[in-house]
């Protein structure tokens, strides 16, 4: 009976997943984009609602309320002479009225959602309409990071505890002894479910019975055909983006009494599972899928309260694993039936030139880092190692995403898994430092051995994750791996019975000693985290990683990777063992991610699973894409640009008003522009091309790198 009640208790969350899933289907049918930012749209709308109504009881309360914040920020921070010139007054806040009525607040909030949908279409997805899949995924991830950062800047980022409105309130009377089950159901649960059913059915009717719906379905299948009949696929896409965003906004407002707006961002994961149940085309399928996932997850969580439930399977993990399980099952059994939108044309993949002189580049890089390490002190040494750590991780994305074309979002979790495994294996049941709160049980392996085992563990997990990738590809792999990120955090990283006492809270990291040398960033004598030996240790790791990637690209394996990225069937026809090559790619990438995990473990004295949350991983993907996803130099540029890297730290320290949220927002804009303008080749290749052009001018030759790449083969171009 408890399990059955659990199913009903899951109707509320199911309603959210269902309507978000319907919105994803609407956007996909309208434009062929799987919108990872869908939850972020719900979050921004919910923030807008809360700001207008000002019923907040959370930590961050605005003085007046009744204002809306447009989805952008002052582009120039207030510092120096610019502050005096007042040239940076791009309007952001518009005060409407104090204490607006519910209907007006709802209308304005939904208008905000519609506006965001319109902007997403015009500024991001319309320019990317013929771009390769990766560019569209990156564009969508960029929008998600942007909205998250702008919400942070405009609303303070802290969670809100809004009471909601009408029957959708946290103070609503519970339904006592629900259906004679001797349990009380939260008052708003059934209202949420009914609201979701009405909204979902109305949306279905719109697409089933109107000419607009028919035209959308037609353009979804054949854009050229729709154009020849007089329908503008881009106008249809724009309208669908607006509808999709309004749906996200509506459920954001209805559910705000249950969850704070920031929580909505990751609701995109179960919503994606719901959309997949509907094969990305069926609105009623997504509706049913959303309710189903909510109910299954709730039943699972209820089941964990029984004595017979294994301790090593935590309730949070069960809740987040439910959508992953549904996704894997749907994609495994029905993946071949999922539609891929046909567009009039598809752009080319980003070039992946190989390094002509990797050892020269390596020598220059090592020289620069050693020089910097000698010049830098305190925070700057730490910034330098953060940059190295970021480069180390980004190299794993270069291999997997840049070379092999597998859009996997799970690699940062693999780094986390290596980090946690290392902590567990090197622990011996005693406190590592006097300041530690707890001691972790473990076999107490020597540090090099524990590190090696942790990297191997990451490789094994990475190869296991690659098995679905043998059947699932493209954007569907991105969807599944995003879900896997959340599940790994809850199932593995925060799993104390499996990973040790501090896994879910603060995990004390080892004090590493490699063959008699202290290589951790924390100097045990001074307690400063800028120990130079760690810098050298990290540099050695990055150098090894860089050489692996550079030589991989130069060899036959790299060419096989690119062949698979270009066309799996053609690669198979040319004799490439696609399954084996993909698994090798995942393995190499996981090895590099595992090495990054080791560097994380040795950099900080204690660590929480938050360090490995999905947004950090997506941020890395964003910045390596900005730097250039297909070259080692791209990873280096990405590391410099990334959060905590040298360039962003320079901005934070020297310019008032440049916060991390600001840097992230600017980075997200750069990401989207990069996806549109450079097709993912990033800063690295752009600079390489410019320098070659300049060299050509100086030598009196007229050929530009672009001409070369256009006439021969985009991937055979060399960079030094």
């Amino acid at each position, binding site marked *: 009976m408890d399990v059955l009640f659990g199913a009903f208790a899951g109707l509320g969350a199911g309603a959210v997943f269902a309507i978000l899933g319907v919105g994803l289907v609407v956007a996909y049918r309208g434009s062929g984009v799987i919108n990872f930012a869908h939850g972020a749209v719900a979050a921004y709308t919910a923030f807008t609602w809360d700001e207008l109504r000002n019923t907040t009881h959370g930590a961050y309360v605005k003085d007046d309320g009744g204002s809306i914040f447009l989805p952008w920020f002052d582009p120039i921070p207030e510092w120096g002479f610019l502050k005096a010139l007042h040239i940076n007054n791009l309007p952001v806040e518009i005060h409407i009225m104090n204490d607006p009525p519910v209907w007006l607040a709802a209308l304005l909030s939904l208008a905000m959602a519609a506006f965001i949908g319109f902007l997403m279409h015009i500024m991001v997805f319309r320019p990317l309409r013929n771009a390769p899949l990766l560019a569209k995924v990156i564009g969508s991830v960029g929008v998600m990071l942007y909205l998250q950062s702008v919400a942070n800047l405009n609303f303070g980022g802290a969670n809100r505890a809004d009471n909601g409105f009408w029957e959708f309130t946290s103070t609503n009377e519970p339904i006592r002894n629900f259906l004679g089950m001797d349990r009380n159901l939260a008052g708003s649960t059934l209202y949420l479910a009914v609201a979701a059913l009405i909204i979902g059915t109305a949306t279905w009717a719109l697409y089933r019975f109107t*000419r607009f719906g*028919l*035209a959308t*379905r*037609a353009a979804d*299948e*054949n854009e*050229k*055909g*729709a*154009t*020849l*009949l*007089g*329908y*503008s*696929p881009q*106008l249809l896409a724009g309208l669908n983006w607006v509808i999709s965003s309004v749906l996200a906004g509506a459920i954001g407002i209805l559910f705000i009494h249950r969850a704070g707006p920031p929580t909505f961002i990751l609701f995109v994961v179960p919503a994606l599972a719901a959309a997949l149940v509907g094969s990305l085309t069926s609105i009623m399928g997504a509706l049913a899928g959303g309710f189903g996932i909510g109910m299954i997850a709730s039943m699972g969580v209820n089941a964990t309260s029984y004595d017979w439930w294994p301790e090593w399977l935590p309730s949070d993990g069960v809740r987040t694993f439910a959508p992953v399980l549904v996704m894997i099952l749907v994609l495994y059994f029905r993946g071949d039936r999922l539609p891929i939108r046909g567009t*009039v044309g598809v752009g080319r993949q980003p070039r992946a030139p190989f390094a002509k002189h990797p050892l020269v580049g390596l020598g220059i890089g090592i020289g620069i880092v050693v020089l910097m390490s000698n010049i830098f002190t305190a925070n700057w040494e730490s910034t330098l190692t953060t940059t190295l750590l970021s480069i180390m991780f980004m190299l794993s994305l270069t291999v997997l995403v840049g070379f092999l074309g597998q859009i996997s979002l799970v690699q940062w979790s693999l780094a986390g898994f290596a980090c946690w495994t290392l902590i567990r294996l090197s622990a011996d049941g005693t406190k590592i430092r006097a300041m530690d709160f707890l001691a972790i049980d473990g076999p107490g392996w020597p540090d090099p051995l524990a590190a090696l085992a942790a990297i191997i563990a990451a490789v094994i997990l990475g190869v296991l994750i690659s098995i679905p990738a043998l059947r699932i590809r493209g954007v569907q792999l991105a969807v599944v791996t995003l879900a896997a990120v959340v599940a790994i955090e809850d199932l593995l990283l925060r799993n104390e019975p499996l990973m040790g006492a501090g896994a879910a809270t603060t995990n004390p990291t080892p004090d590493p000693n490699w063959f008699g040398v202290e290589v951790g960033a924390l100097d045990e004598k001074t307690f400063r985290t800028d120990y130079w030996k760690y810098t050298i240790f990290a540099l050695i790791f990055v150098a090894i990683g860089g050489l692996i990637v550079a030589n991989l690209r130069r060899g036959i394996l790299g060419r096989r990777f690119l062949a698979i990225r270009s066309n799996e069937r053609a690669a198979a026809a040319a004799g490439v063992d696609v399954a084996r090559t993909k698994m090798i790619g995942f393995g190499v990438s996981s090895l590099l991610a595992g090495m990054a995990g080791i560097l994380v473990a040795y950099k900080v004295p204690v660590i929480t699973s938050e360090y490995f949350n999905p947004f950090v991983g997506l941020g890395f993907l964003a910045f390596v894409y900005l730097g250039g996803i297909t070259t080692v130099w791209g990873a280096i540029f990405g590391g410099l640009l990334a959060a905590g890297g040298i360039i962003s730290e320079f901005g934070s320290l020297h310019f008032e008003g440049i916060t991390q949220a600001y840097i992230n927002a600017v980075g997200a804009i750069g990401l989207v522009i990069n996806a549109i303008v450079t097709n993912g080749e990033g800063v690295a290749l752009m600079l390489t091309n410019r320098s070659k052009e300049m060299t050509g001018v100086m030598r009196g030759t007229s050929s530009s790198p672009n001409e070369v790449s256009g006439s021969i083969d985009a991937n055979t171009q060399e960079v030094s």
Partner: protein
Amino acid sequence: MTESSDLLRIENLDTGYAGVPVVRDLNLYVAKGEVVALLGPNGAGKSTTLLTISGLIPILSGSIFALGEEVDSRNPHLMARRGLAHVAEDRSLFFNLTVNENLKLGLRPDKTGMEAGLERALEMLPALRPLVNRRAGLLSGGEQQMLAVARALVSRPKLLLVDEMSLGLAPIIVEQLLPIVRDIADQTETGVLIVEQHVNLALNVADRGYVMNHGELVMEGSAEELLERQDLLEASYLGGELEGEG
């Protein structure tokens, strides 16, 4: 001979892909109620020409005036709204929609009633009537081509472009479909530009014809003239000498 009343007028057109011309210096026109055949071997640039007229491929140089306005590839959907219908080589049907839904998408909403347009198309292609509730993807090749033609007809076009109607179809079906194109031109004064590899079939229903090879116009004349000069036609297809062409 071109006049301002022409439904379609192409002047010195260069068009192609990624800036590389596939069609060079093309001049042709189509008048009201006229069926014009655009002939030539594979790769001659016929389909590229039709796609450019529809606005799906940008013009490299020269100009196209269709239905009184210059073609603008930035908004290709507006061409259909002005009265241009294009039966594409790949038919561009919506396979997951029913025959009825495919036809409804072609209807132009206006005061005269959409049902009448639908009825007229089904009268011209009665074989489709029992299939209206079947998904387009389940139709045979011939039925799909009929649907593509019917969908163009329901929009009551002023200018109709038909690309390779015979592709993948049995000759007997093509012989049934091509006369329908002639009827449309005769009954509604629709101008028709038909691209076809089956020279004799096309010229039997056409008033005039143009022959292209390697992206350039190599012959033109009335249908009768072209039919009489089979030797030159063959030479144009096989890349031989075209001395004395008219």
